[in-house]
């Protein structure tokens, strides 16, 4: 069963998506890597980011971490300005 997931966006990912957050429907037993694949298919410019931190419930998540209903996701790219 699919369920919706809200993803907070930071830095350049905000500009690529054109919003500060997005909602996505994911299948059960989706992990972080497949979520990223889904997002990259929808927003091809995300592919250009070779470093992108995914946080799940305010914690750094590895690619194989499974996502649960209600998880809070954030996409955090590196930022260069100073």
């Amino acid at each position, binding site marked *: 069963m699919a369920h919706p997931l809200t993803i907070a966006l930071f830095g350049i990912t905000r500009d690529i998506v054109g919003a500060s957050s997005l909602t996505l429907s994911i299948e059960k037993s989706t992990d972080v890597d497949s979520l990223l694949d889904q997002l990259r298919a929808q927003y091809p410019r995300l592919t250009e980011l070779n470093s992108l931190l995914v946080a799940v419930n*305010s914690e750094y998540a590895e690619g194989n971490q499974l996502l649960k209903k209600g998880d809070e996701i954030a996409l955090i790219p*590196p930022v*260069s300005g100073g």
Partner: protein
Amino acid sequence: MLSLSEQTRYQKHLLLPQFGAEGQEKLKAARVLVVGAGGLGCPVLLYLTAAGVGKLGVIDPDTVDLSNLQRQVLYRTDEVGQPKVLMAVTHLKKLNDQVEYAFYHQALRRENATQLIQDYDVVVDCTDNFTVRYLINDVCVSLGKPFVYGAIHQFEGQVSVFNFRNQDGKLGPTYRCLFPQQPSDLTVPNCAEVGVIGVLPGLIGMYQASEVVKMLTGVGKVLTGELLLVDVLENTQQKVRVKRRPDAEKLIFPEPGAELVNQDEPSLRSITVADLHQKLEAGEDIFVLDVRNLNEYDICHLPQAVLIPMNTIPNNVKRIPQDRPVVVHCHHGTRSANVIQYLQQNHGFRNLYNLEGGIDAWARQVDETMAAY
């Protein structure tokens, strides 16, 4: 021991029970290197100077640009075109002359980074590009130094303390634990391209300065193992917990030719007018080089000075000795700094000193009979 004037200057620190004289002494014993004297560097430098850090180094290759002034609050409109590090230290000295300053008008590069960073206890990353951010990470990890990271994008900022050794002896995460690979500066744009709200670097820089003070004094909880995200549009703050990767040390210097070159490249060294006066009075063999124009020389000059105007330096390099100290001066210290940089980089000079404040400082502080202009 803190002097009486230090006790007055830092009175409000001394009143804090967690801080006290002990905390102030720790600050005084610390050496901090600020990489980048731009949006983040300005507040970091101002507050660390005010706080009474013992030695403050600043490295930046840039000159002040009119478009910097919207956020780089250390500089003034009439300083456009001047080297940032020179102007920064000029202002900071007036704020607190008990701090020892070192400035390097150059970029942090692979060739100079290790030599420079090893002389400091903490590095503050206030740069505006990924190349230097990753270089700071890699050199600090290789030397075992902590660094305070800050970065900004439009209305949001990131702060963390990386490679920090906790009380239990364990090292915290590094920048590459969050972002292992260096993105191209083309895929992730910087402020120069996408803009930034002026107050943001002030805010983020202040977080960085606060972390520096906390880690040096041991007051409070250092922002290690966490990335702080600040958004001024929504007024939100969140922290993301991050662990050190077991291979953090293996991630550094991934590019070929990763071995560090330890080149002996001198930075811009300087001398005050009081020091020069004392050395000349003591009869030390110093070559004084005046790089102003003839009309300026005619207004006033030091009796022992040799005049070689800046634009004629390349044709007169042979007239400048390399076997004894050479003090280079102009009106205020900017042209002479440029001449020193040129001679060091192109002709391998290692014996040059910039006269701080130029002949103007001499006229004001040493010889009041000298004409000032």
